[in-house]
Structures are given as C-alpha cells and as structure tokens.
C-alpha cells in the first residue's frame, strides 16, 4: 500500500520536474521526488540509505541547485523556445527505452536469491553497521578513490566558477 503511495508521488513529482516552466518549481518537485525515493528505501529496509538520500540529495545537492538558480536569477527565465522535432524523437525513443527496461525486468525475473544478507539477517546486525563494514574492508580502495574524486570535484568547481580563466 505504502509502495503505491510512494510510486504515485515519485512519478507525479518527476513529471512535474520536467514539465513545470519555472526551474525553482522543478527543484522543489525534485526534492519531493527524492523524499519519495527515500521512502522506497525505508520499505526495502535500508534506513541508512534513506537517511543518506535525504541528507545528500535533498539536503546538499538540491540546496546547491536552488542556490545557483537564485545566484543566476533564473527564476523567471521562461521564454525559451521549444524544439518540437527533437521533442518528438526524444519521446519516441524514451517510450522505446522504457519498453526495453520492462523487457529486461521480465527477463531477469527468473533469478533466485544467492546472498546471505536476508532481511532478517540484516535486522539482527543493523544495516548501517553492515554497510560500514563493507565500505571499510572490501570496498576500501573504491572508497579512497571516491575521496580523491571529491577532492578533484572541489578543485574543478573552484576553477570553473572563477571569474577569469
């Protein structure tokens, strides 16, 4: 039941993101969509990810986006002409893409669970601890690489936003 509620909220707000004329409205609908997705994570017993979703996406990234919209004063930049030719091809291709995703989902539905981390098992330890253990043992190298990526992103953002090159 909860699943359908979240689904409707997520799809509706996603549609509004791409359909609303004001970018600030889009941004707010996107935040709503992220909350809906966080809700899915809770249903899937991944509370840690749900928290991260809210913190990182809704909290950090979307704040950044809204900040940029305000910085560039874009809230009323609406009069951008539409390219219907491109739109037509895009709609057709994404209907096709969705169809393909659907086909793949059906194709993969025969898979049986192989792992040991059943919902019950995760609940005995707690999903935060499991993710933490994985992140600092098995995935330590990607973790370090990710930290370097973030460092590079900081430098990159700084260079791009400088007034002069």
């Amino acid at each position, binding site marked *: 039941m909860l699943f359908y509620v979240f689904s409707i909220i997520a799809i509706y707000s996603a549609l509004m993101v791409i359909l609303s004329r004001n970018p600030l409205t889009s941004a707010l609908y996107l935040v709503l969509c992220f909350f809906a997705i966080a809700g899915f994570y809770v249903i899937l017993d991944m509370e840690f990810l749900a928290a991260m979703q809210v913190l990182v996406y809704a909290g950090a990234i979307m704040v950044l986006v809204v900040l940029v919209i305000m910085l560039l004063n874009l809230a009323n930049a609406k009069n951008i002409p539409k390219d219907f030719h491109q739109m037509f091809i*895009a709609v057709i291709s994404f209907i*096709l893409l969705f169809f*393909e995703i659907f086909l*793949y989902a059906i194709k993969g539905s025969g898979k049986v669970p192989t792992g040991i981390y059943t919902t019950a098992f995760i609940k005995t330890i707690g999903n935060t601890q499991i993710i933490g253990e994985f992140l600092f043992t098995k995935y330590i190298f990607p973790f370090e690489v990710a930290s370097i990526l973030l460092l590079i992103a900081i430098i990159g953002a700084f260079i791009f936003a400088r007034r002069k090159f």
Partner: protein
Amino acid sequence: MDTKDLLVWSIPFFPMLGAILLGVFGKYLKNYAGYIGSISIVISFLFSVALFITVASTHGFTAILYPWIYASTFKTNISTYIDRLSVIMLVMVTGVSALVHIYSIGYMKGDKGFARYFSYMNLFVFSMIMLVLANNFLLLYVFWEAVGFCSYILIGFWYEKKSASDAAKKAFIVNRVGDFGFGLGVMLIFVSTGTLNYTSVFGMMPSLPGYLVTIIALLLFAGAVGKSAQFPLHIWLPDAMEGPTPVSSLIHAATMVTAGVYLVARCHVIFSYSPFASHVVAYIGGFTAFLAAFIALTQYDIKRIIAYSTISQLGYMFMAVGIGSYAAGIFHLISHAVFKGLLFLTAGSVMHAMSGELDLRKMGKLYSKMKITAVTFIVGALALSGIPPFSGFFSKDAILADTFNKGYYILWIMGEVTAFMTAFYIFRIIFRVFFGESHVDPSVHVHESSKVMTIPMIILASLAAVVGFIGIPPFDHSLFYLFLHRDFQNSFVFSPFVNYYPWFLLSSISVLAGALGIYTAYLFYIKQAFDTEKIKRIFKPVYELSFNKVYIDEIYDQLIVTPLKNFSVYLWRVVDTFVIDGAVNGLAQGFASFSGRVRRVQNGMVMSYALTLMIGVIALLAYYFIK
C-alpha cells in the same frame, strides 16, 4: 669469428666503408675523395691476396656473418663461399678495381661529381665482391641487382647529357629482361630443392628430373645473357660507353659483365647435368662472339669498337663454359679482364688527350705524341689478338683447342673467324689512331696523360704481357688448370674429348688467324693497298649490315619498343583517362555528396548529440536483449 672469417669480411668492408664515407661526406673531402676511394680498394686488394694465399695453401671454407632470414624451412645467411674460383675472381676484381680507381684520380680530375664518382665506384666494388663471395642464390641475386644498379648510376653519371641517361635506362631495362629470368630461376631452385644454399642445391642436382635442371639452367643463363651482354640482349653494352671511360673499363669490360660467366662457372654442376642448356650457352656464346666481332669491323667510335670486342670475348667465355671447359673460360675471363681493362684505360687516355674525341676518322699519327699510351694499347691489342706470348694467346687458345678437341667444329670455325676479325678491328684502331696520316683537329692540343693515369696502364700492360704464363704448359696440365680443376671436379662430364690433337698444331692455326687479321689491317690502313671506298661499294650489303649493327636495335624498335609504346599510349589515353580517372573521380564525387548529407548530423548542438547517444544506447540494449 676467427681470423679467417675476419679476413673474408674485411674484403667487402673497406669498399663499403669508402662508399658510405664518400657518399655522406664527399662534399667536404674535395680532392681527398679520390685517395680515400682508391686506398679502400687497395686495402681490399691486399686482403684478397692474403685470402688467396690462405685458400691456395689449404682449402675453401664458408664464413657466416649473421643469419639473415629464418622463416620455418627457409633459412638464409649472410655468408660466403670461399673456394679457389671465388678467390681468383676476388683478386682479379679488387686488383683491376684498384688500378682503375687510381687511374680515375687523374681521369676524373676537376669533374664536379668527383666524390660522387668514387662513392659509386666503391659501392660497385663492394657489390661485386659480395656477388663473388655469396654462398647462396638469394644473396647472389641481391648483389647481382646491386651491381646492375651501380652500372646504371655510373652509365648515367653525367646525367645532364640525354644520351647518357638514355643509355643508363636502356642498360637497366635490358638487364631487367635477363634478371627476370634469373629471378624465376632462383625461385624455381627454391621450389624444387627447398634450399638456396649452393652446396645443398648442387648436391641435389643429380636427383632432380632432367627437364627441371634444364629449365633452371636456362633461366639462370637468361640472367647471365642480360648481365654479360650476350645475343640477343647485347644491345645495352655499346650504349653503356656513355659513362666515364674508367667505368667502362672496370664495370663494362673487366668485372660486372663477366658476372654471367662466373655464374655459369659457379653453377657448373647445374649446367653440367643439362647438356642441352650447356649447348645453348655454348652456341649463343659462339654466335655472339662472331656477331659482335662482325659489327666491330666497321664502327668508327673507339669505345664502341672495344665494347663490341668485349661482347665478342664474353662470347668466347660462354663458349668455353658451355662445352664444359670451365677452367678455360675462367682463364680467359681473367686475362680478358686485364687486357680489356687496359684497352679501355688507354682508350680513355686517348680520349683525354683528344678532348673527348672518339671518332677514328679524326685521329691519326698520335704515336709520337703519346708513346706510353700507344705502346700499352698495342700490348693490349696483341693480347686481344692472341699473339704469343701475350695473355690472350694462352687463354683464347685454351678455349679454341677445347672446342676442337671436344668435337664442336662449328664453334671452332666461328672462333677462328672471330679471332681473325678481332685482330683486324683492333689493329684498325691502332693504325688509324697512332699511325697513318693525321686527321686531328689542329686546335686540339694532344698530350700524354699524367703519371697517375699512365702508371696503372703500364702495370696492366705488364700484366697483360705476363699473366698468360700461368697457362703453361698448355691446356690440361697448366698451372691455372690444375689450381682451379678441383673446384670443378663434382660436375658431370657431358663433353668428353674426342680428339687429342697436339696443342702446337691448333695454336698455330689461331695465331695464323690473328696474324692474318693484323696483316689485313696493315694492308688496308698503312699500305692502303686497296681502295677502301671501292671495297665498301662491292660488299655494300655486308658493309651496311655491319655498320648498322645488324639492325638489331631497329628490329627491337619495330618489334617490341613501338608496339609497347603504342599500347602504353592507348592505356594512358583511354584506360587511364576514362576508366581509372573515371572510377576515382566518381568515387570521390559519391563520397562528397554522401558526406554532404552526413555532415548535418555534426551540427554542434549538445542536445542533439545527447539524443544520438540515447538512440545508440537503445539500439545496444535491443541488440543484447535479442542476443
């Protein structure tokens, strides 16, 4: 690599070094170029003599420098085959080369291509040494082409002159015809025996079917015909005289043109197992000897006469190797190299004195002005005519006696007639150039050449006088024969002796022929016992035939050159213009219009690229789903 190997590789090394040095730094070396070029050859000569002594006292060996091509069963080394035949050739090649190089210092003095000349000459000597030393057919083929290339660049040395560059092209193209056969021969050897190494190939000859041996022998002989200017590919050699005279002396008389004879002698096993091919060699040699001497009778250009004489003498050598008298052929090769090199050098000296004039009709009475040249020329001429005790007598007689004693009477008669004509045409030069009345242009200051030119001439003249003595006692008991005989032991005897006439009987006939030729020339040009014009008129057809070189050039022109030219013009005008150009232009236009359409995809819009990328993703997903 032991000392013997080192000795072997030093011989080609110095000319190669000289060629590179002079080719790269020649511009800065000025007059030293001549000394460097000559010294490198002299060193090479000294090493050759050392090698000769080593081999003469012991036996032949194979020296491997490094593995060249190793491809499964096909293995070829850069390696040499040293036996008595190759060391004799080596000493001859480097010796004559050294003298010609020294002579060239004087002859080429002041030429703007001085360093270039010595670079080419050193390159030639290097190639020739390697040709002689090679122990497999592939290496032989490579350097066979290399000497041909050197011949080409040296004939066209004065490339500004159209006649010189034409002559160079002619030489190269005519050689190509022969070399094509040679190349096929080498391939056939590989296909039928699976190896190219001399020893292995020769070892397999008796087991091959007769027709295959004959084809191989004839294909190899095709190369020899081209390189050694035998009928029907002899036409390039007289034109090759456009090059500097020392080049004619070294390449087109003493060394390169004899490579064909060397090839047949080297492959004597192949030829001896195919009597048919050997007889083809012998009869082509005999016919060429006769034909070239006949043409030489009436020419007016000194160098051309000597060139025809070279063709004729090469014919003798082929006659010898064709009847299985390999040692006699090589003997004549050696003595011919000496006296023909000498004749060219002296002709060059005359030419030098006459400011480049070569026409017999514009000379005369030069004896008093250039005694050394005249005397050395006469020595060379006597050797060529086969007058004892000069070298030509021993070597030519060895061949003629063998043809008679082995029962090739037609060849013997042709040889004797040729001997008569040879004596006549060479003394015709002497009498018209050095004696008789002077027709020299008074503006020409005739002078004897400098010492650097005359000393090599004198050395060669003394050699031409004495080198024949290695041929005594005559025939099969001579020093030379006994020395070389061992190398030819493994050949199949297909032409045994049928007569055993004593040597003095046969020799006296050929000496008589030679003397008669000289006497006839004397009657014609000194005594003027006959009215030459009247004789020309009486024997007009014969005279015309000889004067126009038996019309062979014209026949080739009509039969081969003109049709080929017309066909090429057809190809150019019709096939090239419409078919090739049409296809190329059409293709280009097709691509142009197609890319005009495709260009629009590349519109620079980021979003359209994103769309394209998306379509690609969809297509890929579909592909993997179906797969």
